[in-house]
C-alpha cells in the first residue's frame, strides 16, 4: 500500500523551474531515499510535501490529496519532518522542543508514552532535557530534530539530510536509529547527499538530477549501479 505518493510535482522559485515533474511513491513500512547532488531539488521536494513552498501536481497521503491543506494541518494527517539544517528551536529547551513536536496532539498519556519511547531511542535527549537546544552539539541537535518529528506520532517521517555536517561515527549512529524506527513500523522518506549511507538502509531509492527523477530502483541495486557509483559514490 502506498503511504505517500507524489505525481508530477512542479515547483517554481520565481522564474526558476526547480522541480520539473517529479513522481515517486513510498510504500507503507518502507525507507525510500531521494539522492542527488546539491541543488537537485531534494529539499524542495520535501518542502512541497510539507506545504512550505507552493507546488503543482499531486501529493497523496494514504490516497488523500494534500491540495489546499495548510502546512500546520498536514501534521495531524500524519506527516512529520525533520527539516534541513535540523531547525531545532535554539532558545527553547530540549523538552520544550519535544513538546512542540506533539503540538497538534492532546492525549497526554499517549504523548507521555511517545516521549518515553523517544528517550529509549535517544537516551541523550533524556539527559539533556532541561538544556537549551542551541547548546547541543550538531549530532544531538539532529537527534532532537528526529525525536521532535516522532513526537507527532506520524504515519510518514520525512528526514532532510540527517547526516549534514556530522562526524561519520555520529552519522552511523543516526542511520542505525532510522533503521530501528523503520523496523518498528515507521514509513520513512529520506533525503540525502550521503548516498552510500542512504542506499544501504533504503528499500528503494530515486536519483534526482536538476529537478527530475533520472533513476530508480532497490537500494542495493543502486549501490551497485555503475552510473550511481561514478556520480555519487566516488568511483
Amino acid at each position, binding site marked *: 500500500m502506498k503511504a505517500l505518493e507524489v505525481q508530477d510535482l512542479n515547483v517554481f522559485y520565481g522564474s526558476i523551474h526547480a522541480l520539473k515533474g517529479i513522481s515517486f511513491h513510498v510504500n507503507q513500512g518502507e525507507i525510500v531515499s531521494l539522492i542527488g547532488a546539491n541543488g537537485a531539488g531534494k529539499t524542495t521536494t520535501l518542502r512541497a510535501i*510539507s*506545504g*512550505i513552498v507552493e507546488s503543482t501536481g499531486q501529493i497523496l497521503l494514504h490516497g488523500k490529496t494534500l491540495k489546499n491543506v*495548510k*502546512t*500546520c*494541518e498536514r*501534521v*495531524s494527517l500524519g506527516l*512529520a*519532518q525533520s*527539516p534541513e539544517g535540523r*531547525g531545532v*528551536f*535554539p*532558545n*527553547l529547551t530540549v523538552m*520544550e522542543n519535544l*513538546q*512542540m*513536536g506533539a*503540538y*497538534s496532539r492532546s492525549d497526554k498519556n499517549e504523548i507521555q508514552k511517545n516521549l518515553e519511547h523517544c528517550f529509549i531511542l535517544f537516551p541523550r535527549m533524556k539527559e539533556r532535557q532541561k538544556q537549551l537546544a542551541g547548546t547541543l552539539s550538531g549530532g544531538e541537535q539532529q537527534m532532537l530534530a528526529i525525536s*521532535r518529528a516522532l513526537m*507527532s506520532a506520524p504515519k510518514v517521517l520525512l528526514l532532510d539530510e540527517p547526516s549534514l555536517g556530522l562526524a561519520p561515527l555520529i552519522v552511523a549512529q543516526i542511520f542505525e536509529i532510522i533503521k530501528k524506527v523503520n523496523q518498528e513500523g515507521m514509513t520513512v522518506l529520506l533525503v540525502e547527499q550521503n548516498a552510500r549511507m542512504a542506499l544501504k538502509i533504503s528499500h528503494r531509492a530515486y536519483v534526482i538530477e536538476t529537478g527530475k527523477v533520472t533513476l530508480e530502483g532497490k537500494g542495493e541495486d543502486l549501490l551497485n549501479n555503475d552510473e550511481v557509483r561514478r556520480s555519487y559514490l566516488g568511483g
Partner: protein
Amino acid sequence: MQDFIQHLINGISLGSIYALIALGYTMVFGILQLINFAHSDVYMIGAFAAYYAARTLGIDKNPGVSTLVILLIAAMAACSLLGFTIERLAYRPLRKAPKLNILITAIGVSLFLQYSGQVVFGADPKVFPAVLEDSVLFTLLGVEFKSLDLAVLFVTLVMMVLLHLLIYHTKLGRAMRAVSTNMNVAAMMGVNTDRIISFTFVVGSALAGVGSVLVGMKYPKIDPLMGMMIGLKAFVAAVLGGIGNIAGAVLGALIMGLSEEMVVGYLSSTYRDALAFGILIVILIFRPAGLLGKGGVEKV
C-alpha cells in the same frame, strides 16, 4: 538624597509605563520583524476608549479601585480588538510581500488612526477622568509614596508576571517563542502561525491599553496625537534593550524612564525629549543590537 529617591520612584513609574508599550513593539518585531508604527495609536485609542467608557458608565467622577479596573478592561478590550483588526486587514495580506511594503503600511495605518481620531474625537485635548484619588499613602525617610505611583507600579508588575507566565509556562507561549524563532518549522509542528501572530498583536495591544489608562491617570490630558511622542520613546526603549527581546524591552524602558526623570530633576526639563533620541543615536552607533540583543550578521 530625598530628592534622589523621589526621582527614582518617578523614574521607575514612568519606565514601567514605557515598558508596557515597548513590549508591544518588541513582541511584534520578534515574530514578524516588523516595526508596528501603528502601535502608538492603538495606545491612543485605548485612552479614548477608557475616557468614553467612564463617561458612559457615569464613573468619571467616581475615583477608586473599581473604576481603575473597569477602565483597564475597557481599554484592553478596545486595543486588543483594534490590534487584531489592524493585523488582519492591513498586515496579513502582505505576509509574503517585501518587508518595506509592510513598514510603509504600518506608517499609513498610524496616520489613518491619528487623523481619524482628530475627526471623531476632535483635536482638542480632553480631560481624562479621575481614576484614583491622588493621596500620599505613606512617608518613608521623608519620601512621599503616592497612590498613583504605587498603582502604576502594581498594575505593571501584575501585567509583567502574567505575560511571563503566558510566554514561558503555557503551550500558547511556547508556540509564540517557536514561531518567533522559525516560522516555517513551527508550522511543520502543526502551529497555525497566522493565529499565533494574531494573538501576539492582541496581547501587545492589550498591554498598550493598560499603559494608556496608567498615563491618563497620571497625566490626565488626552488627545488624538498623544501616542506619537510616548510611542517613539517606547520604541527607543525597545531598541535600547534589543528589539525582539522581551526582558530587553522592560530593561530599556526602565533605563529610559529613570534617565528621563534624572535629566528633568537635575538638568532641565527641556532636555526631556532630546534625551530619548540621544540614547537612540548612541545605542545605534555603539551597540545596534541593543543591550540584551544578539548581534546578528546580515548575510548578503
